[in-house]
């Protein structure tokens, strides 16, 4: 397993979470302890072991491709922090 040098600022940027400098320092210290613990998994022999993403092997679950009941527009917009003319308002994306 790789080094525990966790670049908190970079990873937080990937996760789209701004952090204060104090949070960066606290999280780095706390998560390095967690990662050290987690690295004990290096001791486990996993050769020839299949990875598992789910408890049960369910593959594809199909239904017929027909319209089903869904939320109406008003209900879907009801929790939006900003909306206008029946649409979600987003922050400007292009300059």
């Amino acid at each position, binding site marked *: 397993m790789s080094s525990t040098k966790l670049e908190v600022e970079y990873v937080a940027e990937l996760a789209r*979470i701004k952090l204060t400098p104090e949070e960066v320092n606290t999280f780095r210290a706390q998560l390095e302890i967690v990662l050290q613990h987690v690295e004990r998994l290096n001791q486990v022999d996993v050769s020839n072991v299949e990875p598992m993403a789910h408890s049960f092997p369910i593959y594809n679950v199909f239904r017929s491709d027909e319209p089903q009941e869904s939320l109406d527009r008003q209900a879907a917009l009801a929790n939006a922090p*900003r909306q206008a003319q029946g649409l979600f308002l987003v922050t400007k994306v292009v300059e």
Partner: protein
Amino acid sequence: MEITSLTAHEILHLLRSKQVSPTEVVTALARRIETVDPLLHAYLSYDLDRALAEAASVDVGLPLGGLPISIKDLISVKGHPCSCASKILEGYIAPYDATVISNLRAAGAIPFGRLNMDEFAMGSSTENSAFGPTKNPWDTTRTPGGSSGGSAAAVAADEAFAALGSDTGGSIRQPAALCGCVGLKPTYGRVSRFGLVAFASSLDQIGPLTKDIQDAALLMDFIAGLDKNDSTSLPEPVPKFSANLDKGVKGLKIGLPKEYFIEGLDPEVDRAVRIAVEYLEGLGAELLEISLPHTEHALSTYYIIAPAEASANLARFDGVRYGFRAAGSEGLIDHYGRTREEGFGAEVKRRVILGTYVLSSGYYDAYYLRAQKVRTLIRKDFAEAFEKVDVIACPTSPTPAFRLGERINDPLSMYLADAFTLAANMAGICGISLPCGFAELGGNRLPIGLQILGRELDELTILQAAYAYEQSTDWHKARPGVGGLVASG
């Protein structure tokens, strides 16, 4: 006697025989909450008018007719708040019912109130709620466990007849143990997750927290089963749990995993659980020592897989379609970063960062893929054990309730609170916690939980074993003296 001290099946009996009305039941519950909840903070909110309106028209002839069931704040109930105890969802109103809620409503139950929890179910003490912690009803200087701490505290303090929680790594069973009630985590896929706000989708399950085993079985009768809205729900037939509890444990093979009776286990927990399993032996069960060799790696595996899935699931909180949005942002990336900075609490940020890290380019194989392989080995441990035994018995939590603030700044010690519960989530099997004694600590009695784990889809056997134990002991009848009203019995 206060009717709020009754179990769900007892109150249903009174409702059906018209000795109480649904309105009286809801009113009594609200009065109990007014008395007790200022001390505990198990509820984030409840809408008494709405509950009374539903009580006025409910059919008491239905199997759960008129029974208020309290709901952890991450299960959608149409028209009710669903904040996941997070600032980022403060004010969010669920636009539809979760499948478990539609099922309970169809049986006549009244979804009641929003129960406190660790934010997005991330935590083991309910201290990570953005709206303040819940206190343990047995000692209000201690945590109720978590993340379903509000559910467990409310049931234990008679301010809920029964509750729904969710369990991703022990979040039903561990608080049930610490508060002295019953908590069942069903087999993965047994209960629909539709309408449950996702934390770690391959581990999450909804389940009941109740005053006794009969009530846990009763709720399972209605929440379990295939749902077309959850493609991971299982098409297996659902037995009528509540009608088949009285089987006894004669000849039942109970495995005791040696890896769970280790140094670091609280001596009073160790003693209570050993006495409990000997008691089951006295009732006719056969005890066998077994080994689950990868137990020591379960915690590490969990704290890779669960944060990885959480980092993906929580990407949806972007301040656009619902929830909190930070004001005054400069551009889209700044909008995301600030909304999530201000909206998420510390533990959620930590886990999203950890999860993003273990999935990021260059680290994926070393962490996430390796953890998925160890998960296979953990599942295999259980499969092999269940070739020799019918159920597995062990402590639910390594310690009784810990103090508020004791572990909050030390994530690893908090994570260790789930050491005995999270392997079941990774294997996908079912498990239950039930009261089996008390530890004496600082002049207070603190409940201890016995955990019984079962084969996948074999909730019936663990319920039967738990029922046999419960029916010949009195632990489940003990109630904390909080709020000056002590239950009879």
